């Protein structure tokens, strides 16, 4: 009956039209916001991007001297490498821990423990990033100095650990949902074939949930790339091509956050910071695009 009624517009109740319009507006607004943000950021930086900025130098030079009086140089290579190295390090820590925790929560722990675990993980996700930065600045700083005998503990390693701790809750909750979404009939079938619980996990559940698990990892990575305050506080905030986990670095996001308050509106330096914003936008766009393509590729296989 409902299907028949939908076809003739005259019979649609008024409330239905209102709700449908409202929901459509909500959906469209997401697109409007994304384009709006991109437009604004692009407008602020466009003047210098197309008139004066040496794009080659911007992307390949490690020299970031935006306030030099004699020779201003806007090279972001060190910042790009900073962002990528600290994210990669964070993922090296967060992915095994996150996926491991998700498998434990979803498959191996008792229902009672699972609820407690989930609450704690959500609590972990709710800690503001400035608090993580503070922990990095104080506790982790001293720990790294003590363990590695380093002169200073505000390093890529410090920031990476902080970012890992921030991404783990995201990875755990999305990966756990993905594992829970695997039908129980798969588990039963595999168990009836004499598979141990671990064999069920890695032979059946991981292949079945790989899309969701990949999404979990990529969202965790996106969180790391975009994170600002914690890395600003924990990594030393020093422009430097990273040479190892114990070198201090600076990221793209932290640069914008630290310098935007100090520049004159509309000045070259101001515009360059917005161009960095465009660069970040592009990076996250590419990461998301790759994720979409990978997931689509996996879907076609299956």
């Amino acid at each position, binding site marked *: 009956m409902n299907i028949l009624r939908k076809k003739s517009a005259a019979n649609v109740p008024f409330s239905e039209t209102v709700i449908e319009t409202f929901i459509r507006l909500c959906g469209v607004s997401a697109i409007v916001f994304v384009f709006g943000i991109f437009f604004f950021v692009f407008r602020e930086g466009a003047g210098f991007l197309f008139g004066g900025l040496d794009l080659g130098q911007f992307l390949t030079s490690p020299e970031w001297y935006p306030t030099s009086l004699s020779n201003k140089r806007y090279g972001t290579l060190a910042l790009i490498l900073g962002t990528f190295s600290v994210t990669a390090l964070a993922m090296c820590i967060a992915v095994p821990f996150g996926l491991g925790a998700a498998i434990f929560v979803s498959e191996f722990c008792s229902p009672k423990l699972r609820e407690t675990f989930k609450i704690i993980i959500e609590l972990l996700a709710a800690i503001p990033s400035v608090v993580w930065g503070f922990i990095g600045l104080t506790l982790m700083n001293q720990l790294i100095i003590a363990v590695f005998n380093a002169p200073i503990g505000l390093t890529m390693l410090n920031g990476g650990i902080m970012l890992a701790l921030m991404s783990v809750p995201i990875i755990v909750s999305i990966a756990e949902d993905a594992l829970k979404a695997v039908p129980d009939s798969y588990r039963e079938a595999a168990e009836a*074939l004499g*598979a141990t619980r671990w064999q069920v996990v890695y032979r059946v559940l991981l292949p079945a949930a790989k899309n969701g698990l990949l999404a979990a990892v990529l969202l965790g990575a996106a969180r790391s790339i975009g994170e600002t305050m914690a890395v600003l506080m924990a990594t030393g905030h020093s422009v430097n091509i990273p040479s190892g986990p114990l070198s201090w670095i600076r990221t793209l996001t932290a640069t914008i956050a630290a310098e935007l308050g100090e520049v004159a509106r509309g000045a070259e330096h101001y515009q360059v910071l917005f161009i960095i914003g465009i660069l970040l936008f592009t990076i996250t766009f590419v990461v998301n695009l790759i994720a979409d393509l990978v997931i689509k590729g996996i879907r076609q*296989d*299956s």
Partner: protein
Amino acid sequence: MENKIEISDLRVHYGDTPALNGISFDVHPNEILSIIGPAQSGKTTFLKVINRTLEFTPEATVEGSVKLDGVDIRTIGDVYGLRRRIGMVLPLPVGLPLSIYDNVAFAPRAAGLRTKSELDEIVERCLQQAALWDEVKDRLDTLGTKLSGGQQQRLTIARALSHQPEVLCLDEFSIAIDPVTTMRIEEVLKTLQKEMTILLVTNLVQQAKRLANRTAFFLNGDLIEIDTTDVIFSDNPANQATYDYVNGTFG
């Protein structure tokens, strides 16, 4: 003749709800024993007790004993080994999200077999036994979940045979497949009977009549009657309820 399985006073509860109220019977080697009965009569629970997958249901409690070749299955330490001695085919076909080859090679691999040639041989033998080989031999690397329902059910049968079980349990295997395929699988079961004992839970009383040497009638967790199929389907089985059920005049 030694009994293959001896069930004595088997009781199962899900929390406070009884599922099996003390049933006792024997299963002979190399027979096809069919179990018939309406929904909620405990047939599936019974199969889950035998391969000990009921242990995954936390609120289920089991009393009484089930002996496989004279050994109480609850005393068997290697529960995974036990499950491989018992093939299980579930009502709805479950193609694991793996290739056809990997589906059939799953249990041998879980048992530790790695040799490619042996796995190849098992996969081919089992798919042939399940009457699926000719349809899939050119695409063993496509996903099992992409097969049609009837093919997936034959895939689960091939999978259940892959660990060379001593007892093959089929739980309403034909509800998702067409009559022609059903008949083909029934022929397969008759052949398999030479090698193993078959427990056939079915809602189709005619299927029991066609295949089974003996038939057990379950009702609300009680074993009402077990006898040769000829007697169960005759005009005078021991219990009136059995007669009513097999003749469709139940209730």
